Protein backbone atom coordinates (compact mmCIF):
# COMPACT_ATOMS: atom_id res chain seq x y z
CA UNK A 1 0.00 0.00 0.00
CA UNK A 2 2.71 2.31 1.13
CA UNK A 3 4.89 1.32 -1.75
CA UNK A 4 2.06 1.81 -4.21
CA UNK A 5 1.40 5.29 -2.85
CA UNK A 6 4.99 6.19 -3.15
CA UNK A 7 5.07 4.82 -6.62
CA UNK A 8 1.97 6.77 -7.49
CA UNK A 9 3.22 10.03 -6.11
CA UNK A 10 6.49 9.46 -7.86
CA UNK A 11 4.66 8.99 -11.10
CA UNK A 12 2.67 12.17 -10.75
CA UNK A 13 5.80 14.07 -9.85
CA UNK A 14 7.50 12.76 -12.91
CA UNK A 15 4.52 13.82 -14.96
CA UNK A 16 4.40 17.23 -13.40
CA UNK A 17 8.10 17.96 -13.56
CA UNK A 18 8.36 18.61 -17.27
CA UNK A 19 5.40 20.98 -17.12
CA UNK A 20 7.08 22.85 -14.31
CA UNK A 21 10.27 22.99 -16.32
CA UNK A 22 8.39 24.21 -19.32
CA UNK A 23 6.86 27.01 -17.27
CA UNK A 24 10.26 28.00 -15.97
CA UNK A 25 11.73 28.09 -19.40
CA UNK A 26 8.86 30.20 -20.61
CA UNK A 27 9.39 32.64 -17.79
CA UNK A 28 13.05 32.91 -18.60
CA UNK A 29 12.25 33.43 -22.28
CA UNK A 30 14.93 31.00 -23.13
CA UNK A 31 14.08 27.96 -25.19
CA UNK A 32 16.09 24.98 -24.11
CA UNK A 33 16.19 22.01 -26.39
CA UNK A 34 16.70 19.45 -23.67
CA UNK A 35 13.12 19.92 -22.46
CA UNK A 36 11.69 19.22 -25.85
CA UNK A 37 11.76 15.41 -25.47
CA UNK A 38 10.06 15.52 -22.09
CA UNK A 39 7.49 17.79 -23.56
CA UNK A 40 6.58 15.30 -26.23
CA UNK A 41 5.86 12.62 -23.62
CA UNK A 42 3.64 14.98 -21.66
CA UNK A 43 1.43 16.59 -24.19
CA UNK A 44 1.02 16.22 -27.90
CA UNK A 45 0.22 19.92 -28.22
CA UNK A 46 2.72 22.04 -30.15
CA UNK A 47 5.05 23.91 -27.81
CA UNK A 48 4.06 27.45 -26.99
CA UNK A 49 6.25 30.00 -28.71
CA UNK A 50 9.16 30.46 -26.36
CA UNK A 51 11.27 33.53 -25.96
CA UNK A 52 10.24 36.97 -27.00
CA UNK A 53 7.68 36.91 -29.73
CA UNK A 54 8.79 38.77 -32.83
CA UNK A 55 7.97 42.28 -31.67
CA UNK A 56 9.21 45.79 -32.09
CA UNK A 57 11.44 45.47 -29.04
CA UNK A 58 14.60 44.93 -30.98
CA UNK A 59 17.31 46.82 -32.77
CA UNK A 60 17.22 46.10 -36.46
CA UNK A 61 19.58 47.31 -39.13
CA UNK A 62 18.37 46.86 -42.66
CA UNK A 63 20.81 47.05 -45.52
CA UNK A 64 22.85 49.90 -44.11
CA UNK A 65 25.06 51.83 -46.49
CA UNK A 66 27.32 54.72 -45.57
CA UNK A 67 29.22 56.75 -48.14
CA UNK A 68 31.52 59.62 -47.21
CA UNK A 69 32.54 62.33 -49.62
CA UNK A 70 36.28 61.99 -49.54
CA UNK A 71 38.71 64.34 -51.25
CA UNK A 72 39.30 61.83 -54.03
CA UNK A 73 35.64 60.97 -54.52
CA UNK A 74 33.01 59.08 -52.59
CA UNK A 75 34.21 56.36 -50.21
CA UNK A 76 31.89 53.52 -49.31
CA UNK A 77 32.61 52.69 -45.68
CA UNK A 78 29.67 50.39 -45.02
CA UNK A 79 28.06 48.37 -47.74
CA UNK A 80 24.80 46.67 -46.94
CA UNK A 81 25.02 45.68 -43.29
CA UNK A 82 21.95 43.96 -41.88
CA UNK A 83 21.38 42.36 -38.52
CA UNK A 84 18.95 42.31 -35.66
CA UNK A 85 19.31 42.07 -31.90
CA UNK A 86 16.52 40.97 -29.64
CA UNK A 87 16.01 41.57 -25.94
CA UNK A 88 19.04 40.40 -23.99
CA UNK A 89 21.04 39.33 -27.00
CA UNK A 90 24.74 40.10 -27.05
CA UNK A 91 26.48 40.54 -30.33
CA UNK A 92 30.16 41.07 -31.01
CA UNK A 93 31.42 43.21 -33.85
CA UNK A 94 34.78 42.03 -35.14
CA UNK A 95 36.95 43.63 -37.74
CA UNK A 96 40.38 45.04 -38.39
CA UNK A 97 41.12 48.75 -38.17
CA UNK A 98 39.33 50.56 -40.95
CA UNK A 99 36.79 47.80 -41.50
CA UNK A 100 33.95 50.17 -40.57
CA UNK A 101 33.42 49.37 -36.89
CA UNK A 102 33.46 52.97 -35.67
CA UNK A 103 31.20 54.07 -38.49
CA UNK A 104 28.79 51.31 -37.57
CA UNK A 105 28.81 52.52 -33.97
CA UNK A 106 28.15 56.09 -35.10
CA UNK A 107 25.23 55.00 -37.23
CA UNK A 108 23.72 52.74 -34.59
CA UNK A 109 24.26 55.45 -31.99
CA UNK A 110 22.39 57.88 -34.20
CA UNK A 111 25.09 60.51 -34.58
CA UNK A 112 25.31 60.15 -38.32
CA UNK A 113 22.59 59.23 -40.76
CA UNK A 114 23.03 56.27 -43.11
CA UNK A 115 23.30 57.05 -46.81
CA UNK A 116 20.82 54.26 -47.45
CA UNK A 117 19.07 51.66 -45.34
CA UNK A 118 17.24 51.91 -42.10
CA UNK A 119 17.86 51.47 -38.38
CA UNK A 120 15.04 50.71 -35.97
CA UNK A 121 15.76 51.17 -32.30
CA UNK A 122 13.04 49.41 -30.34
CA UNK A 123 15.03 49.40 -27.11
CA UNK A 124 16.29 52.18 -24.94
CA UNK A 125 19.80 52.42 -26.23
CA UNK A 126 22.84 53.79 -24.46
CA UNK A 127 25.32 56.22 -25.93
CA UNK A 128 28.46 54.39 -27.05
CA UNK A 129 30.95 53.81 -24.31
CA UNK A 130 34.26 54.54 -25.91
CA UNK A 131 37.75 55.73 -25.09
CA UNK A 132 37.09 59.43 -24.67
CA UNK A 133 34.43 58.59 -22.10
CA UNK A 134 31.73 59.38 -24.69
CA UNK A 135 28.88 61.68 -23.83
CA UNK A 136 30.72 63.88 -21.33
CA UNK A 137 31.00 67.66 -21.56
CA UNK A 138 34.65 68.41 -20.76
CA UNK A 139 34.18 71.98 -19.50
CA UNK A 140 31.58 71.00 -16.95
CA UNK A 141 32.34 69.40 -13.61
CA UNK A 142 31.60 65.73 -13.08
CA UNK A 143 28.60 66.68 -10.94
CA UNK A 144 27.16 68.94 -13.63
CA UNK A 145 27.60 66.16 -16.14
CA UNK A 146 25.67 63.83 -13.88
CA UNK A 147 22.93 66.43 -13.43
CA UNK A 148 22.67 66.90 -17.18
CA UNK A 149 22.25 63.18 -17.82
CA UNK A 150 19.70 62.92 -14.99
CA UNK A 151 17.64 65.79 -16.40
CA UNK A 152 17.93 64.45 -19.92
CA UNK A 153 16.65 60.99 -19.06
CA UNK A 154 14.21 62.15 -16.38
CA UNK A 155 15.99 60.51 -13.45
CA UNK A 156 16.24 61.81 -9.91
CA UNK A 157 19.38 63.94 -9.59
CA UNK A 158 20.37 63.02 -5.97
CA UNK A 159 19.90 59.28 -6.65
CA UNK A 160 22.03 59.49 -9.73
CA UNK A 161 24.79 61.40 -7.95
CA UNK A 162 24.75 58.82 -5.17
CA UNK A 163 24.98 55.92 -7.56
CA UNK A 164 27.67 57.40 -9.75
CA UNK A 165 29.92 58.60 -6.95
CA UNK A 166 29.55 55.20 -5.32
CA UNK A 167 30.20 53.12 -8.40
CA UNK A 168 32.87 55.22 -10.07
CA UNK A 169 34.84 55.72 -6.84
CA UNK A 170 35.95 59.15 -8.00
CA UNK A 171 33.66 61.12 -5.69
CA UNK A 172 36.54 63.33 -4.54
CA UNK A 173 37.02 64.60 -8.09
CA UNK A 174 33.41 65.06 -9.10
CA UNK A 175 33.49 68.78 -8.31
CA UNK A 176 36.26 69.46 -10.83
CA UNK A 177 35.83 69.94 -14.58
CA UNK A 178 35.99 66.72 -16.57
CA UNK A 179 38.86 68.05 -18.72
CA UNK A 180 41.09 67.75 -15.67
CA UNK A 181 40.36 64.00 -15.39
CA UNK A 182 42.63 61.24 -16.55
CA UNK A 183 41.23 59.02 -19.30
CA UNK A 184 40.65 56.26 -16.77
CA UNK A 185 38.59 58.59 -14.58
CA UNK A 186 36.54 59.76 -17.55
CA UNK A 187 35.86 56.19 -18.46
CA UNK A 188 34.72 55.43 -14.92
CA UNK A 189 32.39 58.40 -14.93
CA UNK A 190 30.92 57.65 -18.35
CA UNK A 191 30.50 54.00 -17.51
CA UNK A 192 28.78 54.69 -14.19
CA UNK A 193 26.45 57.16 -15.90
CA UNK A 194 25.27 54.60 -18.46
CA UNK A 195 24.67 52.09 -15.69
CA UNK A 196 22.73 54.69 -13.69
CA UNK A 197 20.38 55.46 -16.56
CA UNK A 198 19.61 51.76 -16.89
CA UNK A 199 19.43 51.15 -20.62
CA UNK A 200 18.09 48.10 -22.39
CA UNK A 201 20.81 47.93 -25.00
CA UNK A 202 24.41 48.91 -24.42
CA UNK A 203 26.76 50.03 -27.15
CA UNK A 204 30.30 49.32 -26.10
CA UNK A 205 33.24 50.37 -28.21
CA UNK A 206 36.50 48.70 -27.13
CA UNK A 207 36.22 50.00 -23.63
CA UNK A 208 36.15 46.92 -21.45
CA UNK A 209 39.90 46.51 -21.62
CA UNK A 210 40.57 49.96 -20.16
CA UNK A 211 41.14 50.97 -16.56
CA UNK A 212 42.74 49.07 -13.77
CA UNK A 213 42.08 45.37 -13.22
CA UNK A 214 39.74 45.83 -10.30
CA UNK A 215 37.50 48.36 -12.03
CA UNK A 216 37.50 46.25 -15.17
CA UNK A 217 36.16 43.36 -13.16
CA UNK A 218 33.58 45.60 -11.53
CA UNK A 219 32.39 46.75 -14.96
CA UNK A 220 32.16 43.20 -16.25
CA UNK A 221 30.23 42.08 -13.20
CA UNK A 222 27.82 44.98 -13.57
CA UNK A 223 27.32 44.53 -17.29
CA UNK A 224 27.12 40.77 -17.55
CA UNK A 225 25.87 39.98 -14.05
CA UNK A 226 23.23 42.43 -12.80
CA UNK A 227 22.44 43.66 -16.28
CA UNK A 228 22.76 40.30 -17.98
CA UNK A 229 19.24 40.74 -19.33
CA UNK A 230 20.36 43.76 -21.37
CA UNK A 231 21.17 43.54 -25.02
CA UNK A 232 24.63 44.56 -26.05
CA UNK A 233 26.62 45.48 -29.11
CA UNK A 234 30.22 44.87 -28.24
CA UNK A 235 33.03 46.10 -30.47
CA UNK A 236 36.02 44.22 -29.21
CA UNK A 237 39.33 42.65 -30.10
CA UNK A 238 39.34 40.75 -26.85
CA UNK A 239 38.86 37.10 -27.74
CA UNK A 240 38.08 35.93 -24.23
CA UNK A 241 35.33 38.50 -23.62
CA UNK A 242 33.68 37.80 -26.93
CA UNK A 243 33.79 34.04 -26.43
CA UNK A 244 32.45 34.26 -22.94
CA UNK A 245 29.54 36.65 -23.37
CA UNK A 246 28.45 36.96 -26.98
CA UNK A 247 26.00 34.67 -28.73
CA UNK A 248 26.52 36.07 -32.22
CA UNK A 249 29.33 37.78 -34.01
CA UNK A 250 29.35 40.15 -36.94
CA UNK A 251 32.58 40.06 -38.91
CA UNK A 252 33.29 43.19 -40.89
CA UNK A 253 35.67 43.38 -43.79
CA UNK A 254 35.99 46.48 -45.96
CA UNK A 255 32.47 47.59 -45.20
CA UNK A 256 30.77 44.26 -45.85
CA UNK A 257 29.58 42.21 -42.97
CA UNK A 258 28.48 38.68 -42.18
CA UNK A 259 26.71 37.47 -39.10
CA UNK A 260 27.73 34.18 -37.47
CA UNK A 261 25.93 32.25 -34.77
CA UNK A 262 29.11 30.32 -34.09
CA UNK A 263 31.20 32.89 -32.24
CA UNK A 264 34.31 30.74 -32.12
CA UNK A 265 34.20 30.20 -35.86
CA UNK A 266 33.78 33.94 -36.36
CA UNK A 267 36.76 34.65 -34.13
CA UNK A 268 38.91 32.18 -36.07
CA UNK A 269 37.79 33.68 -39.33
CA UNK A 270 38.56 37.14 -38.02
CA UNK A 271 42.07 36.11 -37.01
CA UNK A 272 42.77 34.94 -40.56
CA UNK A 273 41.59 38.21 -42.12
Amino acid sequence: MKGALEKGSGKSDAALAPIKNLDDSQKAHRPKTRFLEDEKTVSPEPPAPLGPAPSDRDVTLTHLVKVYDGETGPVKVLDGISFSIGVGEKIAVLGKNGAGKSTLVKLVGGVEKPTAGHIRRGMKMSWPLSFGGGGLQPQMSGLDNIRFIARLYGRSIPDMIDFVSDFSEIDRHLRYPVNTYSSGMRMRLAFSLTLAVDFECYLIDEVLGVGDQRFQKKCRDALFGERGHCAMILVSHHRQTVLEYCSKALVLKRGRGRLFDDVEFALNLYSTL
Partner: protein
Amino acid sequence: MQAFFSRFAVQVRVVRALMIRDIMAQYGRQNLGFLWLIGEPMALIVGVIILWSLMKGSTTHGVSVVAFTLTGYSMLTLWRHLLTRGGNGLSRHATLLFHQNIRLLDILIAQILMEMISIFLSFLVCYLLLFLFGYVEPANDNLLLVSGWLLMSLFGAGMTLLLSGLTEMSKPLKRLLQPILYFTLPLTGAFAMCAWLPERARDVILVFPMVHAMELFRAGFMGERFTFYYNIWYLFAWGIGTFFLGLLVMKRAERHLHIG
Protein backbone atom coordinates in the same frame (compact mmCIF):
# COMPACT_ATOMS: atom_id res chain seq x y z
CA MET B 1 -2.95 62.90 -29.12
CA GLN B 2 -1.66 61.43 -25.88
CA ALA B 3 1.44 60.28 -27.71
CA PHE B 4 1.93 63.81 -28.95
CA PHE B 5 1.75 65.25 -25.44
CA SER B 6 4.12 62.70 -23.95
CA ARG B 7 6.60 63.35 -26.75
CA PHE B 8 6.19 67.05 -26.22
CA ALA B 9 6.91 66.58 -22.51
CA VAL B 10 10.10 64.71 -23.40
CA GLN B 11 11.12 67.49 -25.76
CA VAL B 12 10.53 70.15 -23.10
CA ARG B 13 12.65 68.11 -20.66
CA VAL B 14 15.42 67.68 -23.22
CA VAL B 15 15.49 71.36 -24.23
CA ARG B 16 15.57 72.40 -20.57
CA ALA B 17 18.46 70.04 -19.82
CA LEU B 18 20.31 71.36 -22.86
CA MET B 19 19.78 74.98 -21.83
CA ILE B 20 21.18 74.38 -18.36
CA ARG B 21 24.09 72.48 -19.88
CA ASP B 22 24.75 75.39 -22.22
CA ILE B 23 24.92 77.84 -19.31
CA MET B 24 27.12 75.55 -17.23
CA ALA B 25 29.51 74.80 -20.07
CA GLN B 26 29.83 78.48 -20.97
CA TYR B 27 29.95 80.17 -17.59
CA GLY B 28 30.54 77.43 -15.05
CA ARG B 29 30.29 78.07 -11.35
CA GLN B 30 33.32 80.31 -10.90
CA ASN B 31 32.94 83.98 -9.86
CA LEU B 32 29.62 85.38 -11.15
CA GLY B 33 28.65 82.08 -12.73
CA PHE B 34 25.55 82.21 -14.86
CA LEU B 35 25.03 85.92 -14.09
CA TRP B 36 27.48 86.45 -16.95
CA LEU B 37 24.59 85.39 -19.12
CA ILE B 38 23.16 88.85 -18.48
CA GLY B 39 26.44 90.58 -17.68
CA GLU B 40 28.13 89.90 -21.00
CA PRO B 41 25.56 91.57 -23.30
CA MET B 42 24.98 94.24 -20.67
CA ALA B 43 28.63 95.27 -20.67
CA LEU B 44 28.42 95.78 -24.42
CA ILE B 45 25.18 97.76 -24.30
CA VAL B 46 26.33 99.99 -21.46
CA GLY B 47 29.71 100.55 -23.10
CA VAL B 48 28.17 101.64 -26.37
CA ILE B 49 25.68 103.89 -24.57
CA ILE B 50 28.58 105.72 -22.88
CA LEU B 51 30.57 105.89 -26.14
CA TRP B 52 27.71 107.24 -28.22
CA SER B 53 26.67 109.71 -25.52
CA LEU B 54 30.19 111.12 -25.61
CA MET B 55 30.22 111.24 -29.39
CA LYS B 56 26.75 112.52 -30.12
CA GLY B 57 25.70 114.43 -27.03
CA SER B 58 22.43 113.80 -25.25
CA THR B 59 20.16 113.91 -28.28
CA THR B 60 20.52 113.19 -31.97
CA HIS B 61 17.80 114.17 -34.49
CA GLY B 62 15.68 115.00 -31.44
CA VAL B 63 15.95 111.45 -30.08
CA SER B 64 17.55 110.67 -26.72
CA VAL B 65 20.89 109.01 -27.46
CA VAL B 66 20.57 106.73 -24.46
CA ALA B 67 17.17 105.39 -25.56
CA PHE B 68 18.37 105.13 -29.16
CA THR B 69 21.45 103.15 -28.21
CA LEU B 70 19.73 100.96 -25.66
CA THR B 71 17.11 99.81 -28.18
CA GLY B 72 19.53 99.65 -31.10
CA TYR B 73 22.26 97.69 -29.39
CA SER B 74 19.97 95.22 -27.65
CA MET B 75 18.44 94.24 -30.97
CA LEU B 76 21.78 94.28 -32.74
CA THR B 77 23.27 91.96 -30.12
CA LEU B 78 20.35 89.56 -30.45
CA TRP B 79 20.81 89.47 -34.21
CA ARG B 80 24.57 89.04 -34.00
CA HIS B 81 24.41 86.30 -31.38
CA LEU B 82 21.75 84.31 -33.22
CA LEU B 83 23.65 84.43 -36.50
CA THR B 84 26.93 83.53 -34.83
CA ARG B 85 25.29 80.51 -33.25
CA GLY B 86 24.07 79.51 -36.68
CA GLY B 87 27.54 79.92 -38.15
CA ASN B 88 28.90 77.36 -35.71
CA GLY B 89 27.35 74.68 -37.88
CA LEU B 90 25.86 71.42 -36.81
CA SER B 91 28.87 69.16 -36.38
CA ARG B 92 29.93 70.92 -33.18
CA HIS B 93 26.85 69.50 -31.47
CA ALA B 94 27.01 66.11 -33.11
CA THR B 95 28.30 64.18 -30.11
CA LEU B 96 25.13 65.08 -28.23
CA LEU B 97 23.18 63.10 -30.79
CA PHE B 98 24.47 59.92 -29.17
CA HIS B 99 21.64 60.45 -26.71
CA GLN B 100 18.64 58.92 -28.41
CA ASN B 101 16.16 61.50 -27.16
CA ILE B 102 18.10 64.52 -28.42
CA ARG B 103 17.39 65.79 -31.91
CA LEU B 104 19.45 68.44 -33.68
CA LEU B 105 16.46 70.76 -33.59
CA ASP B 106 16.33 70.49 -29.78
CA ILE B 107 19.95 71.63 -29.56
CA LEU B 108 19.36 74.61 -31.82
CA ILE B 109 16.11 75.55 -30.09
CA ALA B 110 17.86 75.47 -26.72
CA GLN B 111 20.56 77.80 -28.04
CA ILE B 112 18.06 80.17 -29.61
CA LEU B 113 16.02 80.34 -26.40
CA MET B 114 19.18 80.99 -24.40
CA GLU B 115 20.06 83.98 -26.58
CA MET B 116 16.51 85.32 -26.53
CA ILE B 117 16.25 85.10 -22.78
CA SER B 118 19.73 86.29 -21.90
CA ILE B 119 19.68 89.35 -24.16
CA PHE B 120 16.14 90.30 -23.23
CA LEU B 121 17.06 90.07 -19.55
CA SER B 122 20.13 92.23 -20.05
CA PHE B 123 17.98 94.74 -21.92
CA LEU B 124 15.51 94.75 -19.02
CA VAL B 125 18.23 95.22 -16.41
CA CYS B 126 19.84 98.06 -18.39
CA TYR B 127 16.44 99.66 -18.95
CA LEU B 128 15.54 99.38 -15.28
CA LEU B 129 18.82 100.91 -14.12
CA LEU B 130 18.70 103.72 -16.67
CA PHE B 131 15.08 104.38 -15.74
CA LEU B 132 15.88 104.49 -12.00
CA PHE B 133 18.64 106.99 -12.65
CA GLY B 134 16.35 109.05 -14.83
CA TYR B 135 18.10 108.56 -18.18
CA VAL B 136 15.14 107.03 -20.04
CA GLU B 137 11.40 107.36 -19.81
CA PRO B 138 9.18 104.29 -19.28
CA ALA B 139 8.45 102.30 -22.42
CA ASN B 140 5.50 103.63 -24.34
CA ASP B 141 3.83 100.43 -25.54
CA ASN B 142 5.01 97.18 -24.02
CA LEU B 143 3.08 95.03 -26.47
CA LEU B 144 4.77 96.66 -29.47
CA LEU B 145 8.13 96.35 -27.73
CA VAL B 146 7.72 92.66 -27.02
CA SER B 147 6.31 91.86 -30.45
CA GLY B 148 9.27 93.62 -32.04
CA TRP B 149 11.54 91.45 -29.91
CA LEU B 150 9.70 88.22 -30.61
CA LEU B 151 9.51 88.80 -34.35
CA MET B 152 13.21 89.62 -34.50
CA SER B 153 13.85 86.41 -32.56
CA LEU B 154 11.67 84.43 -34.96
CA PHE B 155 13.49 85.76 -38.00
CA GLY B 156 16.86 85.37 -36.27
CA ALA B 157 15.96 81.81 -35.23
CA GLY B 158 15.08 81.00 -38.82
CA MET B 159 18.46 82.37 -39.87
CA THR B 160 20.17 80.28 -37.17
CA LEU B 161 18.60 77.10 -38.56
CA LEU B 162 19.30 78.10 -42.14
CA LEU B 163 22.92 79.03 -41.50
CA SER B 164 23.62 75.93 -39.37
CA GLY B 165 22.51 73.83 -42.31
CA LEU B 166 24.23 75.87 -45.02
CA THR B 167 27.57 76.21 -43.26
CA GLU B 168 27.54 72.44 -42.71
CA MET B 169 27.12 71.83 -46.41
CA SER B 170 29.45 74.54 -47.73
CA LYS B 171 32.91 75.27 -46.34
CA PRO B 172 33.39 78.56 -48.28
CA LEU B 173 30.23 79.96 -46.76
CA LYS B 174 31.55 79.14 -43.32
CA ARG B 175 34.66 81.22 -44.06
CA LEU B 176 32.65 84.09 -45.50
CA LEU B 177 30.07 84.17 -42.74
CA GLN B 178 31.87 86.63 -40.47
CA PRO B 179 32.28 89.31 -43.18
CA ILE B 180 28.68 88.76 -44.30
CA LEU B 181 27.50 89.08 -40.72
CA TYR B 182 29.48 92.30 -40.35
CA PHE B 183 27.82 93.86 -43.38
CA THR B 184 24.34 92.97 -42.17
CA LEU B 185 24.83 95.05 -39.01
CA PRO B 186 23.90 98.43 -40.59
CA LEU B 187 20.93 96.67 -42.19
CA THR B 188 19.45 96.01 -38.75
CA GLY B 189 18.67 99.73 -38.49
CA ALA B 190 20.58 100.05 -35.24
CA PHE B 191 22.60 103.05 -36.41
CA ALA B 192 19.85 105.21 -37.90
CA MET B 193 16.09 105.45 -37.74
CA CYS B 194 14.09 105.20 -40.95
CA ALA B 195 12.59 108.63 -40.36
CA TRP B 196 16.01 110.21 -40.73
CA LEU B 197 16.62 108.73 -44.17
CA PRO B 198 15.66 110.17 -47.54
CA GLU B 199 12.67 108.42 -49.03
CA ARG B 200 14.55 106.37 -51.64
CA ALA B 201 17.06 105.08 -49.12
CA ARG B 202 14.21 104.21 -46.77
CA ASP B 203 12.45 102.17 -49.46
CA VAL B 204 15.63 100.21 -50.04
CA ILE B 205 16.38 99.59 -46.36
CA LEU B 206 12.81 98.52 -45.63
CA VAL B 207 13.33 95.50 -47.88
CA PHE B 208 15.28 93.99 -44.97
CA PRO B 209 13.03 92.44 -42.30
CA MET B 210 15.45 93.29 -39.46
CA VAL B 211 14.73 96.99 -39.95
CA HIS B 212 11.01 96.38 -39.48
CA ALA B 213 11.71 94.61 -36.19
CA MET B 214 13.98 97.40 -35.03
CA GLU B 215 11.42 100.10 -35.88
CA LEU B 216 8.72 98.09 -34.16
CA PHE B 217 10.85 97.74 -31.07
CA ARG B 218 11.69 101.44 -31.00
CA ALA B 219 8.08 102.40 -31.63
CA GLY B 220 7.21 100.42 -28.53
CA PHE B 221 9.97 102.06 -26.52
CA MET B 222 9.87 105.70 -27.61
CA GLY B 223 6.24 106.08 -28.58
CA GLU B 224 4.39 108.27 -31.00
CA ARG B 225 6.52 111.38 -30.80
CA PHE B 226 8.48 110.06 -33.76
CA THR B 227 7.52 108.43 -37.02
CA PHE B 228 8.31 104.72 -37.39
CA TYR B 229 8.10 102.61 -40.49
CA TYR B 230 7.23 98.97 -40.11
CA ASN B 231 4.92 96.29 -41.42
CA ILE B 232 4.27 93.54 -38.89
CA TRP B 233 2.91 91.11 -41.49
CA TYR B 234 5.87 91.58 -43.80
CA LEU B 235 8.21 90.80 -40.90
CA PHE B 236 6.08 87.86 -39.74
CA ALA B 237 5.97 86.36 -43.23
CA TRP B 238 9.75 86.60 -43.49
CA GLY B 239 10.14 85.07 -40.04
CA ILE B 240 7.90 82.09 -40.75
CA GLY B 241 9.31 81.61 -44.24
CA THR B 242 12.90 81.62 -43.06
CA PHE B 243 12.10 79.30 -40.18
CA PHE B 244 10.56 76.67 -42.45
CA LEU B 245 13.28 76.98 -45.03
CA GLY B 246 15.79 76.68 -42.17
CA LEU B 247 14.12 73.46 -40.99
CA LEU B 248 14.29 71.96 -44.47
CA VAL B 249 17.93 72.91 -45.00
CA MET B 250 18.85 71.64 -41.54
CA LYS B 251 17.21 68.27 -42.22
CA ARG B 252 19.11 68.02 -45.47
CA ALA B 253 22.40 68.95 -43.86
CA GLU B 254 21.84 66.39 -41.12
CA ARG B 255 22.53 63.67 -43.65
CA HIS B 256 25.95 65.13 -44.43
CA LEU B 257 26.94 65.32 -40.79
CA HIS B 258 30.32 63.75 -40.20
CA ILE B 259 32.22 63.77 -36.96
CA GLY B 260 35.91 63.01 -36.43
